[in-house]
């Protein structure tokens, strides 16, 4: 069996498993899983660009995905006129002051090289003064904005643009953040880079959780507009009514399936575009250069390649893809909930996808996204049934049995750990290994 045949078979098995869920559980569940599989696949493509192409360990996936979510609310939610009048301009001015302080700070840092060790002091003075200035400007604005109808709004709102635009903007947000993070952290060794990016992503989440004037914080922004029609609207259309009557289907279920299918269509389109671009990039001289840098930095830089710049470039590109996926996820949820961003789900799970799928291979990353998300969701019912089977010999009222059944849901963490450890040990190159070129 050739490689292509084997890989297509793997994808077919995966699709068959999703279809199996459709038959055994319901098509609604299957499509929900499938949509998140698509988004996960895009996220793991982003991580694969950083890790597989260039060997950069980014443990800040969660932060970039959340920034994509932020883009979704800033682009699509409606502006809140009252808060804009009360303090919008002042808040923007405060942010500009902060940005200005940072620029002056960097300028001071660069211009004081001659001071050597004492170099920290002037920069620190600029930073402290700049921070105080920003707080002085922005604090009153924040408290007035957050005081206006906090139960309903209490934030600035967005620009009321179509949410599809936010997918692009989410990518840009994440790319901008990645540029700053990359400038700071890319000089570090691999494991320090992981820890630093993990820390930065936590800082991003803390920011989104606590700056209520921008994101409503833990009060969440709900009811974001959709790029696809609502189920209720579909149910009232004549064509769907006659269609379901003809085939004898339930109109409520059919409309919900149609909505999910249209999401799937949108996500699949994005996935195919990104996959095609990544594959083209990987095959191009640029991809060859990235692999050369990954495999031997010293040799590549001796050949005149600017390693630092290329690392920054690939870091920004990968993060942009993650940011897009983050915006898509918020679009699918229809709401932005900062407290739902957990490193286990948004950083480490994506990493499991890339490693299991096959780092360095885009198709592998996509397959990994599908397989791991599928098991992440299905481990719960499977685990429950397994436990039920194991404990079926026990007494109905046995406390051990009750405990085991109650906690069977946590099997999924164990399953993920086990899959990752087994793949690392016995197939370290993943399900679809990187091609030797």
């Amino acid at each position: 069996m050739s490689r292509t045949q084997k890989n297509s078979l793997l994808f077919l098995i995966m699709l068959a498993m999703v279809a199996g869920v459709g038959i055994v559980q319901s098509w609604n569940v299957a499509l929900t899983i499938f949509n998140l599989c698509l988004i996960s696949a895009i996220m793991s493509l982003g991580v694969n660009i950083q890790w597989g192409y260039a060997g950069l360990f980014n443990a800040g996936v969660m932060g970039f995905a959340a920034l994509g979510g932020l883009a979704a609310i800033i682009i699509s939610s409606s502006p809140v006129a009252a808060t804009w009048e009360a303090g919008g301009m002042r808040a923007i001015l405060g942010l500009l002051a902060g940005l200005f302080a940072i620029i002056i700070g960097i300028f001071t840092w660069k211009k004081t090289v001659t001071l050597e060790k004492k170099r920290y002091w002037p920069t620190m003075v600029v930073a402290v003064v700049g921070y105080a200035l920003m707080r002085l400007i922005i604090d009153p604005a924040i408290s007035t904005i957050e005081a206006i109808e906090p139960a309903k709004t209490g934030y600035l709102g967005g620009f009321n643009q179509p949410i599809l635009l936010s997918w692009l903007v989410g990518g840009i947000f994440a790319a901008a953040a990645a540029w700053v993070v990359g400038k700071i952290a890319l000089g570090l060794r691999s494991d320090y880079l992981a820890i630093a990016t993990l820390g930065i992503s936590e800082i991003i989440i803390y920011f989104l959780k606590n700056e209520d004037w921008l994101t409503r914080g833990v009060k969440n922004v709900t009811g974001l507009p959709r790029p696809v029609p609502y189920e209720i609207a579909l149910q009232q259309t004549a064509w769907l009514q006659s269609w379901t009557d003809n085939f004898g289907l339930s109109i409520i279920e059919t409309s919900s399936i149609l909505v999910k299918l249209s999401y799937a269509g949108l996500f699949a389109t994005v996935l195919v575009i990104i996959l095609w671009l990544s594959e083209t990039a990987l095959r191009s001289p640029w991809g060859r250069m990235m692999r050369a840098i990954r495999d031997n930095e010293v040799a590549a830089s001796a050949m005149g390649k600017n390693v630092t710049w290329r690392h920054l470039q690939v870091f920004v590109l990968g993060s942009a893809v993650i940011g897009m996926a983050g915006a898509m996820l918020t679009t699918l949820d229809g709401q932005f909930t900062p407290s739902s961003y957990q490193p286990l789900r948004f950083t480490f799970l994506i990493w499991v996808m890339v490693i299991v799928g096959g780092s360095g291979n885009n198709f592998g990353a996509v397959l990994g996204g599908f397989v791991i998300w599928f098991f992440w969701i299905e481990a719960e019912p499977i685990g429950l049934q397994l436990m039920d089977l194991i404990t079926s010999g026990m007494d109905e009222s046995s406390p051990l049995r009750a405990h085991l059944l109650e906690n069977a849901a946590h099997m999924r963490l164990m399953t993920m750990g086990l899959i990752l450890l087994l793949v690392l040990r016995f197939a370290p190159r993943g399900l679809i290994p990187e091609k030797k070129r």
Partner: protein
Amino acid sequence: MTDILNTLALISNFIIVPGLAYGSQLALGALGITMVYGILRFSNFAHGETMSFGAMATILITWALQAQGVSFGVLPTALLALPFGILITIALCLFTDRLVYRYYRSQRAEPVTYLIVSVGVMFFLGGLIRFIIGPNDQIFSDGTRFIMKVRAFKEMTGLSEGLAIKTSQGVTIITAIVIVTLLFWFLNRTRTGKSMRAYSDNEDLALLSGINPERVVIIAWIITGTLAAVAGTLYGLDKSYKPFIFLQLLLPMFASAIVGGVGNPLGAIAGGFVIAFSALIVTFAYKKVLAYLLPLSMAPEGLMQLLSTDYKFAVSFLILVIVLLVKPTGIFSGKTL
């Protein structure tokens, strides 16, 4: 004069006592991370879950002891259960090493491979812990709750500010001192400890002088397991045990280890306290302090807080990032285990 004493009481109550307790917990955790880094040379992402496992084992044995009617007087029963918890955690560490990490040692894997492997271990342990004890809050401290109560302190000193010291805080600080003293005695005075320092310092030279690497690794895991179980139990006693909190603790612990200079035990301890105190100092509301120290007319209106309390954890990450930027080798650079 009373104003100054009141200020001191206020600062002791909200910064010094909690800082010492939290700092000790972080320091013990960071020591475990440093130990793995110094001997096995990788960043162990599973350390938080190892601590959680140790705390869980201790809790289960505490419950068993309590069911038998055993108690430790004014001190929490968990201290009696702790030795068993430590043994179980050591067994877990050795088991994981044998089953997982040893293979990668024989392959001479890259540090980043180990890191990914430890993420796998983290997932597995996290699931195992939630499977055994469930995802919810567990409170297992008993005995007297306070060494010093606010009311008693006020009556004793006649000050208007109170000072409370929880038993768990006292126990944390004393246990940490005992454990750290033992660790340093072991590393600096015993033959095995010296061989470990040699191994950490220069692997090849240590191998040449006949040090058995597998033995060094086993002892490193024994120390790591002990530290993890103690740190996890102390944190659980102080703040109640929640399985998910240990992933959040992982970063402050890494921050402590790196701030002090990873691989250096003294640095890990200093780093723990730097992180704990800076988080408290930056998020403390200085309104009352200023009200005591300044004349009445200059008393501030706002809370006088540098950062809102919500950012407590974020401060440690910020320090981590700054240290990585400015001095990636940490405060005590150039010294290893």
